[in-house]
C-alpha cells in the first residue's frame, strides 16, 4: 500500500434542503479506525457516502488517498447467481489477487455457501457476503455502514477479527452504527455534536 489516508475538514452536508451536519473534522492515518455514532437520520450514511466520494460535501474538503470499499444496506449482488460467482464479478473488477476471494469467504465463514444462489441467503448471510466483498477488494480504506446489522454473535466475532487484521496491516476502518461494533480503540464521532440544532 502506498500513501493511505482520509482527511475531512469542516465538512457539511445538506440533503433535501436540510442541514444534516457541519463542521465535521476527521483525520485517519494507516491503522486508524473511527466509529460514527448517533440515532437514525442524523447523517451517518451521508457522511459515509461523502467519505466514499459518492456524495459531494456541501462545504469543507475531503482528501482521500487509497481505494475505498463500502458496504451499506444495499447488497449489490446478483440474486440469481451463486454466491461465489456473484462475489467473483466484483473481485474481477477489483483486480483482486488470486485467492483473495477464497480468503475473504473463509474469513466470513461463507465457504459452504459458495454454490448457493444469493436470493436463498438469510439476512445475516447476505451481510457477511457484503463484508466478504470488502475484505476481498484489497482496498485500504473500509467504510462499513451498520456492519453489525443482522449478524449473530459468531459473525460479529468474525467481523471483529477481520477488522483487527485489516488495521494491523495498516488499513483504515470507518464504521457507522447505532449498536456496538467490535472495533479496537476507535476515534468516536458522536454525530449529534455536529447537528444543526445549535445553528
Amino acid at each position, binding site marked *: 500500500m502506498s500513501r493511505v489516508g482520509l482527511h475531512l475538514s469542516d465538512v457539511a452536508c445538506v440533503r433535501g434542503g436540510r442541514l444534516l451536519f457541519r463542521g465535521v473534522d476527521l483525520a485517519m492515518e494507516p491503522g486508524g479506525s473511527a466509529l460514527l455514532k448517533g440515532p437514525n437520520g442524523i447523517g451517518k450514511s451521508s457522511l459515509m457516502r461523502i467519505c466514499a466520494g459518492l456524495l459531494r460535501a456541501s462545504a469543507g474538503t475531503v482528501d482521500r488517498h487509497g481505494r475505498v470499499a463500502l458496504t451499506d444496506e444495499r447488497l449489490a449482488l446478483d440474486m440469481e447467481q451463486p454466491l461465489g460467482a456473484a462475489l467473483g464479478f466484483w473481485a474481477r*473488477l477489483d483486480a483482486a489477487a488470486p485467492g483473495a476471494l477464497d480468503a475473504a469467504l473463509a474469513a466470513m465463514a461463507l465457504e459452504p455457501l459458495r454454490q448457493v444462489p444469493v436470493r436463498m441467503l438469510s439476512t445475516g448471510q447476505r451481510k457477511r457476503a457484503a463484508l466478504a466483498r470488502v475484505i476481498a477488494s484489497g482496498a485500504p480504506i473500509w467504510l462499513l455502514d451498520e456492519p453489525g446489522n443482522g449478524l449473530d454473535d459468531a459473525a460479529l466475532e468474525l467481523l471483529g477479527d477481520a477488522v483487527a487484521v485489516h488495521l494491523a496491516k495498516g488499513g483504515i476502518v470507518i464504521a457507522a452504527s447505532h449498536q456496538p461494533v467490535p472495533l479496537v480503540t476507535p476515534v468516536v464521532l458522536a454525530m449529534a455534536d455536529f447537528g444543526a440544532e445549535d445553528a
Partner: protein
Amino acid sequence: MNILLTLASRDLRQAWQSAGLWLPVAFLLLVASLYPFAVGPDAALLRRTGGGMLWIAALLASLLPVDRLVAPDRDAGVLDQIALRGIGEEMVVLARLIAHWLGFGPALMIATLPAAALLKLDGATIGLLEAGLLIGTPALAALGLLVATLTAGLRSSGALAGLLALPLAVPLLIFGAGTLGDGSGAALKFLGAASLLLVAITPFAGGAAVRAGRE
C-alpha cells in the same frame, strides 16, 4: 478493455436471466401476426405497408425492456459499487449499450424474417429491412438506454420513458422506413448518420444522468 468486457458480459447475463430478451421478439411477431387481421389479407397492401409497420414494431419493441436496464442496478447499489472502484459512468453505460444491443438487435433481426413472411414482403424489401435494422437497432438500443438512465429512480418511469424516447426516435423511423422505398441509398446513409450520433452521445449523456441521479 477488460473492465468493459466484464461489465458487458455481466449485463448480458442479467438480461438473459431476467428473460427480458424474449419480450421484444415476441412483441414483434405478435404485431406482425395481428396486422393482417386489422387491414385485411390483401397481399399487395400488406407488401406495400408491411415494412413500415415492422419498423414501428421494432421501435416500440425497443422500449419494452427500458425499465429494467438501469433502475434495478441503481436501486441495488450496483452502480454505486462500480463507481467506488473508480470506473467512469461513461464506461458503465457503454458496456450496457453493447450488452443491450447484443441482447436485442440480432434477435429482433432474426424475428423480422418470419414477421416479413407473415406480411408477404418480397426478398429485396427484406434485404433492405434487415440492412436498415442492422444500422438502426444500435440507435434504438442507445435511445432506450438513454431514457432509462434519465428516468431511473422516477415514479412511473416506464410511461415517461416512452414519452421521452418516441419524439427522439422520429428521425430513425423516417430514415429507417424511408430505406424501403428509396433506390438511391440516401436514406440508408441518413439512418447511419442518425444512428452514429445517438450511439456516440449515449455513453456521455447517460453517464451524466447516472451521476446526477446519485445526488
